């Protein structure tokens, strides 16, 4: 049982993250005026460290889109995009972004500069389609970084194997092609020392990030992997490869360690510990979270914190003595790891060690209507885990941006039924 204490490690983490986010918006607001290069990038497969070598500002349209939902204005943007002709079935991240472009790049956080370059990837096919949209809308070049991912369930992917080496060679060749393109756009020369510096910052941040993910094995949990996890995710994306980012994550880890020492728990009376799979329900974050906190349940971990940071959570670190090769290798391995957990979901989820370490009582799948990358396997995995491994699973559907798909009463009914069953199982031994 946790003790009620005044101290919360999340206070400093949240306030520092807010400050960084505001500074990011401020930099973006000035970029166009200063005629500084800007790249639109995604939270997966983005080579941020390389962009920093060329002093390119990074815009994360996924983050901007989800912020419109959190600030309850996403529907305005979505309506604008649908009025322009976009389908109701298209990804709502894309529609929020297109809506923003149609509204003169005005975002609730500030003015967003137009991209000088779009970097898409194959990791989500919408990324490539989105990059094509930017080519047409903003008349900017698109570069698609193609990262071969897992081929089959349980297939080893080890350095030295012919498949691994062929994949690495392909990714490395593309990175050199990106270097050439960045040189043309920025007029700057590639500096491997600068890349190594960015990678060293990322190494520091990633070491701390891993510590933060692991510390939630603590009982009671120190943070909610969904509500607080998205704050951390924002930071790992906008500040990766920078000293500011490394300092932030080391600070956050220290705060959580201090919290653990003081027996802090994000919930005063933690009863259920859950794993969240999917993308957050941004249009109704608080209401969604309240449905779970109301049952004294907390999301202690989530693959969302793995794939949406590009997968930099394995035992990988950059080898700064060979920065380009190392960038290719980590881009490949990290994304491979992250996506194995998405496409061959059961391989990741039915991991007894993970379940036991985090003391997980059940899994919640939040299938997002307009994000098939993350959500397609959910129902099948739920069926598989429930049937074969008797793991309590809850499957919910809504959206990550469009509030029209959040049916509160329906979702609450399902959540309540799930917890009633979970209570019977956990405290009364009935299934």
């Amino acid at each position: 049982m946790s003790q009620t204490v005044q101290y919360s490690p999340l206070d400093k983490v949240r306030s520092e993250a807010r400050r960084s986010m505001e500074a990011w918006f401020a930099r973006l607001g000035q970029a166009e005026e200063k005629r500084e290069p800007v790249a639109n990038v995604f939270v997966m497969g983005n080579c941020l460290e390389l962009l920093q070598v060329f002093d390119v500002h990074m815009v994360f349209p996924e983050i901007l889109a989800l912020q419109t939902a959190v600030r309850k204005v996403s529907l305005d943007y979505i309506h604008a995009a649908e009025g322009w002709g976009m389908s109701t079935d298209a990804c709502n991240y894309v529609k929020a972004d297109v809506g923003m472009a149609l509204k003169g790049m005005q975002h609730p956080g500030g003015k967003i500069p137009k991209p000088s370059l779009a970097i898409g990837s194959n990791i989500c096919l919408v990324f490539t389609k989105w990059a094509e949209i930017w080519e047409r809308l903003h008349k900017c070049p698109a570069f698609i970084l193609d990262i071969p991912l897992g081929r089959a369930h349980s297939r080893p992917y080890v350095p030295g194997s012919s498949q691994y080496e062929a994949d690495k060679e392909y990714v490395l060749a593309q990175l050199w092609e990106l270097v050439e393109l960045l040189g043309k756009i920025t007029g700057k020369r590639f500096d491997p020392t600068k890349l190594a510096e960015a990678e060293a910052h990322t190494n520091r941040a990633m070491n701390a990030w891993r510590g933060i993910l692991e510390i939630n094995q603590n009982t009671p949990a120190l943070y909610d992997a969904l509500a607080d996890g998205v704050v951390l995710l924002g930071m790992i994306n906008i500040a990766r490869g920078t000293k500011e980012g490394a300092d932030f994550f080391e600070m956050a880890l220290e705060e959580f360690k201090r919290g653990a020492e003081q027996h802090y728990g994000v919930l005063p009376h933690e009863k259920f510990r859950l794993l969240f799979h999917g993308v957050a329900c941004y249009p109704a974050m608080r209401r969604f979270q309240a449905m779970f906190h109301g049952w004294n349940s907390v999301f202690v971990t989530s693959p969302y914190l793995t794939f949406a940071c590009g997968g930099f959570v394995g035992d990988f670190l950059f080898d700064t003595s060979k920065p380009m090769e190392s960038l290719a290798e980590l881009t490949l391995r990290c994304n491979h790891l992250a996506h194995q957990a998405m496409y061959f979901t059961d391989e990741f989820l039915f991991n007894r060690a993970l379940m036991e370490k985090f003391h997980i009582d059940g899994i919640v799948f939040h299938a997002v209507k307009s994000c098939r990358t993350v959500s397609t396997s959910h129902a099948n995995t739920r069926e598989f885990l429930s049937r074969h491994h008797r793991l309590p699973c809850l499957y919910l559907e809504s959206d990550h941006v469009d509030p029209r798909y959040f049916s509160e009463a329906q979702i609450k009914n399902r959540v309540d039924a799930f917890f009633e069953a979970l209570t019977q199982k956990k405290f009364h031994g009935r299934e």
Partner: protein
Amino acid sequence: MGCLEDLLYRSRVIAEDLQFQGPKAWKAAQPHRKVLGHFQVYFPEEIAHAAGMLPIKIVGGGNKLEARRADAHLGSFICSIMRSTLELGLSGRLSFLDMMVTHPICDAARHLAGIWTRTFPNQPAQILYLPQNPNSKAAVKYLYHEYQRLQRDIEQIAGHSISEEDLRKSIALYNENRSLLRELYNLRKESPWLLSASESFVIVKAGTILPKEEHNQLLREILSLLPERNAKPQDKVRVVFVGAFCELPPIEMIETMEEMCYVVDDDFLIGLRWLTEDVSCEGDPLWNLAAAYIEHSTWASTQYDCHKPKEKMLECQVRAARAQGAICAAAKFCEPGVDDQIAYAKHFDSAGVSYILVEFEEKQTSFERLKMQTETFAEAILFE
């Protein structure tokens, strides 16, 4: 040789066979035979054929299959072809497959291998990563390695290795098939009254499950009979149909469009026509297959290529077919399709190409709305 109507009827029976009787009979004929299933869009069937396997294209179940079991496995926002393909598996219709290969053509299909593994653990399933950056100088070499990997996996299932000579023979056979399909499509462009799009569709679709040797024979016979067909040109609008690169429209939908239009070109089963030229049988056959995929290939919404902007490719296709307009379709919940519809629309508005936007599902059974749309479209063109 049969008469044309018999051959067309036979094609339709094969194309609509949801029990896969042909592949099952092929497999049962000899004990060592193996069948490889692959999902849309493109697959280098030559590699499986060279191993003595029967490669068949899995293209969903159309509107004759109710996805009762699959609904429990897929969210409400997943397209019909994913749903019906899984239903084919869950209903036992695909239990004869020895291997299943899928491709990350879209964000739903990229999950198929994982879903297949969980649901049918006795059928090895895997993903073939075709390059999404064909503009990279390293793309051909990467794909060559990927094909080598695939070849090793196929050899393991087949139980023996594939020689270069085997591959060359298979490539030659498939070159002939592609050449015959080009001939079929050229004939439709030149004389659409001799062969309707729906007839062409079933002929091509029969090739998804027929052994290529048999499909070539079928195509040769049909092509030899078509010029003598007793049919006269009608006053119909010439259109190109696009948007069926993966999920296929029901045949009744094509027939509905044809009441007012000659569909003179389309992207039905485009994967079978992905390679646009003969693949060289000289040198390293696997390299030639990889190079052909990158250098001599068509386009689709599922493949990025900065040299092939979709809207301009479609405009070229419309002009090359001397079409008067385009029917730009997208399957329900198909992100690549719906995203490209807007690109076509914006471009055609400025390029002065007539078009309509259509949404469809393979499970669709009512076509009244489509009929009204195409009638209005065709009349607008006719009275321009």
